[in-house]
């Protein structure tokens, strides 16, 4: 038994035979040709076929993993156009076969990319260039066939997987991905997340594991090769328990979230980026109750442009196909630092310059986001939610900016919808004045994490305070009840998007309290649906 430690890019346990990914054989011989024109024509036929295949992969990826992942294939198709001059030149000048000319061009281009020490992005494109060159060579010789047709389910081990390879795999035969290179952001990791199977990257697996028994532990981030009986038994039990849980929950997919007496609850998902969308659909959320827009700001080196934000919001709106998507506007502050905001260091960031306070102080940032959101609203069912509200004037001010944005868009003839507006209830002040706030907005979403911290005056990161911290403190439950009642007096729906929303011991109580919506991480949705469906 041997254990190899890597990085988990998606959790879960898989047990099965290990298969080493076979790379298509592209050993190229150099041969002499006399009819160079015929050879060039062969190249073009192969190239055309390759480009057609690549665009098919593009369409497949578009359906399976989304636009951002599919785009690379369009670029691949264009790489090939760049090959023409070099390939034709080599064939003509050296009287050689097209395969040799393509391989040489691919190698030269890869070498050029490898030399770009100051540009890791371009260095990483070597794989792409070699991938397309290999494809053309295969296509000149009667087409592909990667030889990866597994007859049983396997743990797939490889150095790294090109997007074209992952997209071609028969995914029903893959139990887990293990790569020696790659990163937690690679195509493979994203695919694994979509497929809900474990994946490891940067795992130093030796070359001789093909055909051996293996266990992938996506929780610990390791692969066990040739496990002993005891280990195997332990993991088999764990995998069976998880499978049973999954099976039970699959039965709940597509079912309504409704109590026996017929009360319907909106069961929504919290997401932190577009990458989570597949998980949302997989777990059958009825909508998105909290789309944290921070990721757009955290992942870039400068303020994200209106266009970048618009694209992200539009993608989510479209992928959710008319289901409600609540986007929370920028919620950063001294505790969630973003360098280019140049925020001052604060002694007490939880009570500091953050969220709506930044937005109302620097309206140019806020309005860029609002414009992107309103533009995206034309493509789906978007709601806008403001965080960290403590006063009515803040809501009125935020709404004023919304009106300005709507007028601008109207004057520019840009389509948008009249988006429902809501606020986070996450401060005791907001609970106290919930009646007044409810007159201003269409919905409330209770952020129990911050509400707990501000109500109990407890920093949840501080371990010394553990015995003083009570997540079910009666004060919190009363605040939730007060918020629900105030909302309902003014026709404002009320949800919970904090951690408490997914707490199975409270689900029944929340429903009885009159909650309209619960939003939680996608994996919690089906278990909570089960509880609600069993309620009277």
């Amino acid at each position: 038994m041997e254990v190899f430690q890597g990085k988990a890019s998606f959790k879960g346990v898989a047990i099965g035979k290990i298969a080493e990914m076979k790379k298509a054989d592209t050993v190229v011989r150099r041969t002499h040709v006399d009819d160079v024109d015929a050879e060039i024509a062969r190249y073009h036929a192969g190239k055309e076929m390759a480009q057609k295949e690549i665009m098919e992969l593009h369409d497949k990826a578009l359906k399976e993993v989304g636009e951002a992942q599919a785009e690379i294939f369009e670029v691949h198709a264009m790489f090939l156009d760049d090959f023409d001059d070099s390939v034709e030149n080599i064939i003509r000048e050296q009287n050689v076969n097209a395969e040799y000319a393509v391989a040489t061009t691919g190698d030269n281009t890869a070498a050029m990319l490898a030399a770009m020490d100051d540009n890791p992005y371009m260095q990483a494109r070597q794989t792409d260039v070699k991938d397309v060159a290999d494809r053309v060579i295969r296509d000149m010789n009667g087409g592909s066939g990667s030889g990866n047709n597994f007859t049983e389910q396997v743990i797939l081990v490889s150095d790294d997987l090109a997007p074209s390879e992952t997209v071609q795999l028969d995914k029903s035969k893959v139990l887990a991905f293990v790569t020696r290179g790659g990163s937690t952001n690679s195509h493979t990791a994203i695919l694994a997340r979509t497929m809900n199977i474990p994946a490891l990257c940067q795992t130093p697996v030796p070359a001789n594991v093909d055909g051996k028994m293996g266990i992938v532990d996506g929780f610990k981030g390791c692969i066990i090769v040739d496990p002993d009986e005891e280990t195997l038994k332990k993991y088999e039990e764990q995998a069976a328990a998880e499978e049973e849980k999954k099976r039970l929950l699959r039965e709940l997919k597509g079912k309504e979230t409704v109590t026996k007496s017929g009360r319907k609850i909106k069961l929504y998902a919290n997401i932190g980026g577009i990458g989570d969308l597949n998980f949302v659909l997989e777990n059958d959320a009825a909508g998105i109750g909290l789309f944290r827009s921070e990721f757009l700001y955290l992942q870039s080196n400068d303020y994200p442009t209106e266009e970048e934000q618009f694209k992200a919001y539009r993608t989510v709106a479209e992928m959710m196909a008319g289901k409600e998507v609540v986007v929370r506007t920028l919620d950063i502050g001294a505790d969630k630092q973003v360098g280019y905001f140049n925020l001052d260091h604060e002694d007490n960031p939880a009570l500091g310059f953050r969220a709506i306070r930044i937005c109302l102080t620097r309206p140019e940032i806020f309005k860029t986001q609002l414009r992107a959101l309103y533009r995206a609203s034309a493509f789906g069912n978007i709601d806008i939610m403001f965080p960290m509200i403590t006063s009515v004037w803040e809501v009125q001010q935020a709404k004023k900016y919304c009106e300005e944005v709507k007028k601008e868009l109207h004057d520019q003839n840009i389509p948008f919808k009249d988006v429902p507006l809501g606020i986070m209830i996450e401060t005791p002040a907001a609970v106290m004045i919930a009646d007044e706030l409810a007159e201003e907005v269409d919905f409330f979403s209770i952020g129990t994490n911050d509400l707990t911290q501000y109500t109990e005056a407890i920093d949840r990161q501080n371990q010394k305070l553990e015995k003083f911290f009570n997540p079910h403190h009666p004060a919190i439950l009363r605040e939730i009840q007060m918020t629900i009642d105030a909302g309902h007096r003014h026709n404002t729906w009320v949800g919970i998007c904090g951690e408490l929303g997914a707490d199975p011991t409270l689900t029944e109580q929340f429903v009885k309290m009159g909650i309209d919506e619960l939003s939680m991480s996608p994996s919690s949705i089906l278990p909570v649906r089960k509880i609600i469906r069993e309620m009277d």
Partner: protein
Amino acid sequence: MTFTYIVNDPKGMHARPAGVMAATAKEFASDITVEYGGEKVDMKKILPLMGLPMKKGGTFTVTIEGEDAEAAEAAIRNALSDINF
């Protein structure tokens, strides 16, 4: 004819803008080059374009020579602003 353009994309040069630029340039017969930081490449080729180490705020120069230069200029400008590069 020649015009300059200031990069607005926070990510600088990457696959997407290079793809759009090359695809647009290919629609025209004119010779079109892009010059950045002393390096000059054919705009109809995606790989050399991707290799230009453009950063946000940097300026590059597009030179167009040929009969359809005017139409090419308009199309390239439009394409660049469409993707907000």
